[in-house]
C-alpha cells in the first residue's frame, strides 16, 4: 500500500515535493552507512544538509541532526 506523503501541516505534497522529501531521506540515510570513503561520506552529508534546508523551506520536514 503506497503512503501519501504530507507536509508539516498534514497536507498532501505535490510530485516535486514528494521527490525532494524522498531524496533527502535516502541521502541522509546513505550518509550514515559504514565503510564509506571520506570523500563520499562528507559530500553526502553536505548534500543532506542542503536538501534538509530545501525541505524545511517548503514546510515538508523540520528536524535537526
Amino acid at each position: 500500500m503506497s503512503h501519501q506523503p504530507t507536509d508539516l501541516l498534514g497536507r498532501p505534497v505535490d510530485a516535486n515535493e514528494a521527490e525532494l522529501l524522498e531524496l533527502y531521506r535516502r541521502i541522509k540515510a546513505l550518509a550514515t552507512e559504514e565503510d564509506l570513503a571520506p570523500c563520499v561520506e562528507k559530500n553526502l552529508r553536505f548534500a543532506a544538509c542542503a536538501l534538509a534546508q530545501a525541505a524545511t523551506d517548503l514546510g515538508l520536514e523540520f528536524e535537526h541532526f
Partner: protein
Amino acid sequence: MSDRRYWNPKWECAPKADLRALQLEKLRRSVAWACAKSPFHRRLYEAAGVGVDDLKTLDDIRRLPFMTREDWMASQAEKPFFGEVLTAPRERAIRYHLTSGTSGRQPLRVLDSGKDWQWISECWAYGFWGFGVRPEDTVFFAFSYGSFIGFWGAHYCCEKIGALTIPSGNMTTENRVRQLVEMEATTVCATPTYAIRLALEAERQGLDLPGSAVDKLIVSGEPAGSIPAMKRLLEEKWGAKCADTAGMTELGTIMMFECAEQPGGAHIIEDHFIEEVIDPETGEPVPYGEMGERVVTSFGRGMIPVIRYRTKDLVVKVPHDRCACGRTFDIYDGGIQGRVDDMLLIRGTNVYPRAVEAIVREYKEVDEFQIVAWRREDAIDELTVKVEFVAGFGGDRAGTMETIAADLKRNHEGLRINVEEAPEGSLPRFELKAKRLVDRRNQG
C-alpha cells in the same frame, strides 16, 4: 511556474493562519529538541514546569520562560567555553564565532554545525533575493571576515544564489573603493557607517560612485540603516538603492530584511522565526504599532536552541500589508529602533542614541559625531554631541551647531543638549558596529 520575486514564494506569501500553524509545529519540535539535547534548556523548562505537551496553540509560547543573555553568559562562565546550551559536542561544529565583548563584558561564544550554516545563509538569501540580488550580480563585501559573524552568512548566501562574490578581507578602505569600481560590483555590503566612509573615500579619490555599476547597497550591523536621513544620504552618495537588514550573533543570521519595495521597515522571516514584542517591564505582549522589546525564537540553529530570547532591541511591529510587495511577513517599522539598555536618562528626559543620530544625520555638512554623557561637579547630568564637519566645509559652523542644538532640544521635550565642534579627523571611525555613545557619568 513560481513567482521569481520571492526566494520562498510558498511561505513568504502564505495565509497568516498557515504561517501560524507552521510556527506552532516548528516551536513544538524545537522545544522537544532543546529539552532532549541541551541541559540548559532542560533545566529551564523543568524549573518552569512546562513541556512540549503544554504547547497546544501559538499563544502557549508565553508559558515558556524567557531565555536571557545573562543566563547564557552565566552558563558559559560556569562551564567554559560554551556552557550547557549546546545540543551536540563541539566535535560536531564546523565554525566558531564570538561577540566583540565591548564594555568589558565577556564575549558570547557560539558554535554551529554544517547544517546550521546552510540555514544561516538561507535566511540571508530571503533578504538578498527579496532586494533583487540575482546570479547576474557582482557582490562586494566590505567586511573583514574575522571572528565577528557579521556578513559571513551573506557571503555564503550569494554563493548559493550564484552571484559573483568578492571578499575584500583585510584590504584598506582605499583599495576596497578602487576594487569595487574596477570590478563593476553591482551590490555592496557594509555597515551603514562604513558605507559612508567608503563613499567619502571614493570622493577623495575622484571616483564617481553614483556613476558606477553599483545599484544596490545592503547594510547591516547598526540601526542606522533604517534611519530615513541616513538612508537618503547613503542612496545619494552611492546612487544606489539601500536596504536594511538586521541579525545578531545569538542567532547567527538575519531575522529581518527590507524588500525591494522599501516600505520603511524590514519584513520578519516568519517561517524561520517567531518574533514577539513585549513590554520590557512587565513582559506582557504589546499590540501592533507600539514600541516594545523583541523576543525571538529561532528554528534553524540546531547546535544552540534560541527560544524566547530577550534581545533588548526596541521595535515597533506593524502588519504585513503596510508593504505592497505581497509578502505576508509582518514588518518592523523603522527596523531596530534602539536598545532597552541604551536609553540615557538626562535630567529626567529619556534620550535614545538612535533618535539623536536621526537628527544629526539630517545635516549633510556633518561627517562624524559622538554622543558624550557626563556629570558636572554639581551632579547635574549633561549631554554633549560632538560634531565633525566634512572636510573643507566653508559654511557657518557656529550657526549649524546652533540649529542642530535647537533641533535636538525640540525633539527631546525641551532638554538642552550641547553641541560642540570636534577637530577634523579626531572622532573614531568604524568598520563594524559603530559605537558613538560615550557615558562618562560614573567616571571619577
